Every structure is written in structure tokens, then in C-alpha cells.
């Protein structure tokens, strides 16, 4: 049987045309255009000027810092909360299917809709969150209006929306664990905490790796939620790379915007690829 003939390379052609034309080619040309000032028609080569500007200008480089913060904190929140909820939902409670659906559903709702809803819930004077805190005697805050809390407020919504996916991945991982391990441990007199630490956690590693990678890469690229909740404000307090790229594009600084895009590629490539290698190496069979 001639493999090359049956599994003809022609099958790949439509995909390759669209994917290289509209993804790979822009990616490669962006390396060049990030070194220019251009308006989509004419360009002037300026060397590394755009990158210098990006790193020196406070309103631009805050995007790099916030992107990393957003990815790391968002990822940790989803991993921790997702793991704990999954442990809870794999126990013998009766409502686990309903609860799983309820926690998962926000993931399907448009991010813009979620942003609008939580912007209203976090309203500094009328918002439900502050009213609820007031009712139990706590003082609320201007969650999105204060430069120090704004990024964390958006992050909490990010976790609210994304924890469902983390949870279902963990649940799948936990259900795949052989029950006999737990039985053996019970006979040896292990308590619940020991079982969690010595059986569930290590054997969930593949699931955990998926959650970490998904959440981290998603966090690095995030735009919709931040854009609908704060627009990068107050000031530049919640600007991430994706929103800086959009702002520079809207202002007509195309070279700068493209440089932002290239910085994002480099960050993701230099963190996500090694992260993946590292995580996969540590997996237990």
C-alpha cells in the first residue's frame, strides 16, 4: 500500500493555503513591520525604535507587566479553585451534576456580556457587591475605579468565568484514577487528607498540566474582558499587551502596535513552550 498516494498531500492543501495565508504569513511579516513606521501602504524602516519606545514609555510597558501578572494570577486562581471544586464534586454529594453545570455555564456566555454584568455588580455606590458588603457591616471599595484594585477585580471575574473549564478537566482527571489506590490506602489507614495529597494530587498531574497551560496562554492573550470592564483604565492600570496593541492601532501607530504584537509572541514562545516541556517531563504514569 502506497501511503503517500492514499494519504495524499493534496488533503492538506486547503488548510495550508488559509492557515499560512492568514496566520503564518502575517506572523512572519510582523517581524519586519515591527521595525518600521507604516500605514499599511508605505513604510519607513526605523530599526529597533518601536521596541525602545515600548520598553521606555510607562503607558506601554505597564502592558507587559500586567499581562504577566494577569496570566500568572489568573492561572493560579483557576488551578486552585478548579482543583478544590473538582475534589468536592467527585465526592458522594447528590447535586454534583447540577453544580457542575452551573459552574460551567459562564464559560459559554459572551465575555462582553459577562464584563457588562460585573461592571454593574461592582458599581462603587449602587453595585450589588458593595451593598451586600454594607449589609454585613463591611465597607466596599471602588473595585474598578481604583488603580490598585482594578486589575484584581477583573481577575476575579476572569476566574469566575474560567473556573468551570478547569473544574471539568480536573474532574475527568480524577475519575480516571484507579479506585483500588484509594481502597489500598484506606486499608493502610490513610485519612482523607493523606489520600488527597498522595494519590489524587500526583495522579491528576496530566489534568493539572492542561489546566495550567490553557489558563496561562489564555491569560497572556486576554483582551475582551479587560476591554469591556475597564478599557485599560483607570489611567493605564489594567492595560495588558492586547489592549495596548488595540489602542496603538486605533491611534494609527501601526508600527508600535505591530511591535507590541511581536513582544507578545516572544513572551508566549519563551514562557509557554518551555513551560509545556517542563510540565510534560514531570508527568507520572
Amino acid at each position: 500500500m502506497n501511503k503517500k498516494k492514499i494519504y495524499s498531500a493534496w488533503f492538506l492543501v486547503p488548510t495550508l493555503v488559509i492557515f499560512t495565508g492568514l496566520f503564518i504569513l502575517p506572523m512572519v511579516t510582523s517581524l519586519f513591520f515591527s521595525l518600521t513606521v507604516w500605514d499599511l501602504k508605505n513604510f519607513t524602516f526605523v530599526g529597533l525604535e518601536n521596541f525602545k519606545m515600548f520598553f521606555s514609555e510607562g503607558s506601554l510597558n505597564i502592558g507587559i507587566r500586567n499581562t504577566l501578572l494577569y496570566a500568572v494570577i489568573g492561572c493560579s486562581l483557576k488551578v486552585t479553585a478548579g482543583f478544590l471544586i473538582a475534589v468536592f464534586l467527585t465526592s458522594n454529594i447528590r447535586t454534583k451534576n447540577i453544580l457542575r453545570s452551573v459552574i460551567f455555564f459562564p464559560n459559554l456566555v459572551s465575555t462582553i456580556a459577562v464584563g457588562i454584568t460585573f461592571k454593574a455588580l461592582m458599581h462603587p455606590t449602587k453595585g450589588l457587591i458593595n451593598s451586600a458588603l454594607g449589609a454585613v457591616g463591611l465597607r466596599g471599595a471602588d473595585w474598578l475605579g481604583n488603580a490598585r484594585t482594578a486589575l484584581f477585580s477583573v481577575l476575579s471575574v476572569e476566574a469566575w468565568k474560567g473556573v468551570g473549564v478547569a473544574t471539568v478537566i480536573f474532574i475527568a482527571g480524577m475519575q480516571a484514577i484507579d479506585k483500588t489506590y484509594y481502597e489500598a490506602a484506606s486499608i493502610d489507614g490513610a485519612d482523607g487528607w493523606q489520600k488527597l495529597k498522595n494519590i489524587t494530587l500526583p495522579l491528576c498531574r496530566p489534568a493539572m498540566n492542561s489546566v495550567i497551560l490553557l489558563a496561562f496562554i489564555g491569560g497572556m492573550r486576554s483582551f475582551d474582558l479587560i476591554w469591556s470592564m475597564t478599557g485599560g483604565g483607570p489611567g493605564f492600570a489594567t492595560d495588558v499587551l492586547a489592549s495596548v496593541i488595540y489602542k496603538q492601532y486605533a491611534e494609527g501607530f501601526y508600527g508600535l502596535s505591530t511591535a507590541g504584537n511581536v513582544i507578545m509572541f516572544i513572551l508566549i514562545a519563551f514562557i509557554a513552550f518551555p513551560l509545556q516541556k517542563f510540565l510534560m517531563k514531570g508527568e507520572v504514569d
Partner: protein
Amino acid sequence: MKNRKRLCLLGDIVGMLAAGIIFIIPFLFIFLNSLKGRREANLLDLSLPSVWEWGNYKAVFEANNHIILTAFKNSFLITLGAIILLISFSSMSGYVLQRRKDRLTRAVNVMIMTGLMIPPAILPTIWIMKGIHIYKTLAGIILIEVALQTPFTIMLFRGFMGSIPTELEEAGVIDGCSPFSLFRQVIFPLLKPVTSTVVILNSVTIFNDFMNPLYFMPGSKNATVQLTLYNFMGQYSSSYNLLFADVMTITVPMLILFIIFNKKIVDGMVAGAVKG
């Protein structure tokens, strides 16, 4: 044993309460406020509407010359178009990539892997789209969505191909099938389970996509559902009732989809994540 049961019941109660407060209240909040009068809704509280204003929904549909209908039509066409192309092209690619292991397929696999992680380069993409005259067109955004969802879709198809025995193809070759009709008539029908996962997951992603239409299909005539919602946010900043009615209009289709395909969606997401 009795103690354990009691503990589980407590778990049920605590779980339902927490889920109710954290996950249900936001939706209840949107629903109730979408049915209030303007002044009442602007208080942003959880009370029941004093008058149930179902007319809010009518107002949302009539706003800006029925823009929301155009938006739904556009979003629907984009989603449908992109999914048809994704299924046709990615299933073929996933098939070949799983069956054939040589330099070519290794190179393609690396490209696909890159596409799973790296975001699109916005401005050069606009530049290319302008060059081939598809910028600000439905066809253009459909091709963009196809390009961006291709890596994930191929991964699902490639993963599923692993469970289909090669004997079928061997039999087909002996019967004199051409490579394409072998795929069309023997393999593609067997991919049905993963195809339906692909349809559901991609519909959700593409229908909810905000960033790509924002960049690649700007202009008031080219509204998509998510863009209209975003513009409503600016326009109705003082009429929360209408804003929330719009949010509801967009959320309900997803809720219906979720109720029908609950298991399929959850399993699909898990499969996609774990194989990636």
C-alpha cells in the same frame, strides 16, 4: 456510615448555597433588571420589577434601525460559513496528519502547535486582507475564523482518527477507491462524533468572538452580535434595563444550546484540552 451521609447532605447544602450566590445571582440580576423601567433598573438592585416591562426587549430589537437583527444575521452567517469550511478542510488534514508520519506532516504539526499558542498578528493580517480585497467583508472574517480555529479543530480530528483502524482503508484501496472517495465515503462518516463536537465548540467560540470582528470587520454595516453589545454599552450607559435586555437576548441562545448539548460540550472541552 450515618455520619458520612450527614456530611454529604451538608456538602449538598453548602455547595448549592455557594453556587447560588456566586453563579446564579449574576444571571438573576440581569434577568430581573432587563424587565424593569429605566429609573428602577438604574438602581442596580435585586428587587422584583414593580411593573414587568417586556417592551424592553422590543425596544432592543428596534434600536438603531433593527441593527440587532443584522447583527444576528451576520454572526449566524460567519459561524455557519466558518464551520462548514473548518469541517471540510480540517477533517481532511487531521486524517492525513494522523496516518502519515514524514517530514511534511511533522512540519505541519509544528505549525499547528504554534497556532494553538500564538495569537494572530493583527496589522499584517489587515494588510494581507486589504491586498486580496477581503478586509471588512463577511468572506474575510469567515476565512480569518477558519484560520484561527484550524489548529484546535485539526487537533480534535487528528486525535479521533487514532481510534479508527487502518484496515478499513486497506479494504477500500483493494476495492479500487480513489484516495478522495475513500476519505469521503469511508472515513468521513465515521468521524461523526468528533464532527459534532467540532460544530458545537466552534459555534460557541466563533459566535462569542469579539476581538476578531472588532479588528477585521469594522464599520456600522458589519455589526456582529458581540460588537453590537459592546456599542450598546456606550450608548445605553444610563438605561441599564435596555442594556441588560440585550445581554439576555445574547445569553439565552447559549443557555438553550447548553441545556440540549450539556454532555457533548463538557466532554468536548475536556477532550480538546487534554489532547492539546
